[in-house]
């Protein structure tokens, strides 16, 4: 049977990505983008809810999606650090969506044929959503990279800042290995060649330089997060925790 921590971790990725993205609502550079980013955030939030609910079912301890989202501490979240990073400007939001969305699209596509029927069904559904996110991020990467000199500088800065955090998405991990071994999940290492091919091509078309450097921060999968994560979680959970047991 699927280890409940597997969908939980995927759900954490989606949840924290949605939480960061929702900050843009009322702050996007144009109204079309308020709509589009809210749409992406909604997809991610929907993915998080389905995955956390599935994790709760598999765990069998009666924890709901809200218990898992609002009542775990900083060290119990398994999302990759990439998704929790603050988005200093719109270029950061675009670069993050390009990197994370491409990873998600490949992951969801692979998940669609896994042995856990719930995850397989979700993977099929989510893959379509992710494809839209990737397309959206790709369009913006091209516009910003090949737009003005300022936009190119900002986009390159964002790519440089976030690139090191992409390694963690594909890093070896016992949970991935186990899930891949029994067919209930995917080893993301297998996705890396396709990811690199796609992202590299987009960066090239956008006249951007693919970063070098061997810094590979990580630890999110083991609950080791950046200092930006605690305040994010504090804000997200404060109201829920202020009213223990209340329904909303």
């Amino acid at each position, binding site marked *: 049977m699927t280890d409940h921590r597997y969908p939980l971790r995927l759900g954490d990725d989606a949840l924290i990505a949605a939480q960061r993205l*929702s900050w843009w609502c009322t*702050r996007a550079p144009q109204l079309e983008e308020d709509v589009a980013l809210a749409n992406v955030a909604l997809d991610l939030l929907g993915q998080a809810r389905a995955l956390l609910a599935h994790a709760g079912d598999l765990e069998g301890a009666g924890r709901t999606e809200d218990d898992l989202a609002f009542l775990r501490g900083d060290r119990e979240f398994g999302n990759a650090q990439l998704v929790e990073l603050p988005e200093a400007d719109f270029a950061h939001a675009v670069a993050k969506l390009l990197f994370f969305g491409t990873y998600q699209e490949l992951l969801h596509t692979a998940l669609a044929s896994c042995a856990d029927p719930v995850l397989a069904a979700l993977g099929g559904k989510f893959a379509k959503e992710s494809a839209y996110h990737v397309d959206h991020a790709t369009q913006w990467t091209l516009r910003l990279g*090949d*737009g003005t000199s300022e936009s190119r500088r900002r986009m390159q800065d964002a790519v440089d800042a976030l690139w090191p955090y992409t390694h963690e998405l594909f890093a070896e991990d016992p949970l991935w290995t186990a899930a891949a071994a029994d067919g209930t999940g995917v080893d993301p290492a297998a996705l890396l060649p396709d990811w690199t091919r796609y992202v590299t091509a987009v960066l090239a078309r956008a006249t951007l330089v693919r970063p070098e450097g061997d810094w590979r921060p990580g630890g999110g999968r083991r609950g080791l997060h950046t200092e930006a994560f605690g305040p994010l979680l504090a804000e997200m959970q404060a*109201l829920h925790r202020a009213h223990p047991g209340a329904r909303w």
Partner: protein
Amino acid sequence: MEAQFEAVIAADARVEPRDWMPDAYRATLVRQIAQHAHSEIIGMQPEGNWLTRAPSLRRKAILLAKAQDEAGHGLYLYAAAETLGVDRAELTEKLVDGRQKYSSIFNYPTLTFADVGVIGWLVDGAAICNQVPLCRCSYGPYARAMVRICKEESFHQRQGYELLMTMMAGTDAQRAMVQDAVDRWWWPSLMMFGPPDGASPNSERSMAWRIKRHSNDELRRRFVDMTVPQAEHLGVTLPDPDLAWNEERGGWDFGEPDWSELQQVIKGDGPCNAQRIERRRAAHEDGAWVREAASAYAAKKAAREGSSR
């Protein structure tokens, strides 16, 4: 041409963008549609304040979807205004520098999560009372935008009411939050219908042009009659000691809002006026480099495609 315009109005038919129309009709519509569009956009902020703190994932999703709808409504409405020969950037400038207004209701702060529910119930409820008649407005593009918007607004209103029902069935603290939110939003909601008829100088002309179909006071009464039984069903008290059933009229009598407060908020001295405009201004200015990049890219792309033909 004027006769034809008058005939269309008299027949209760639609004026379309290419039709001749009096300058004052056009100006009135631009002002009203722009104000309406601005209200959708500024109106994302009070509830947006709770997006990152929503106490359940379901409520977070509902809030996000609502904010997205509002941005969409803003887009339809700016598009409707553009059919009258203005453009969105110009209208945004006017909003940001204070030459155009938005609904004063959005200058009040959302202090607790119950405010999210009450905004859905009362503020969207009042908006619907105002907007349903606009679906039959004499200007075609505006009327058609309103049909779509009203449908979504009703949905938001039901969601807000449902949140309040859930909270009223919850803890004492949740019930107190709901009552407190109702106490704060009731009078501002009544003021959403504008000043009393005697003090609303433009109303008569707008009614003659069939932009507007009911007077402010008429719509306000309709809203109160609709809302009082909902409040009873919810189990909250509306903060008006003068609220009483009028057997004769078959409707509810109610007290007089504090019109000086409305004037003050319209003038710019509401609790959140400065903050709302500042957020909008910052988003617009911080996004300038992005919009410039998009234009530059589009131009390059067009040039490349042109030269490769």
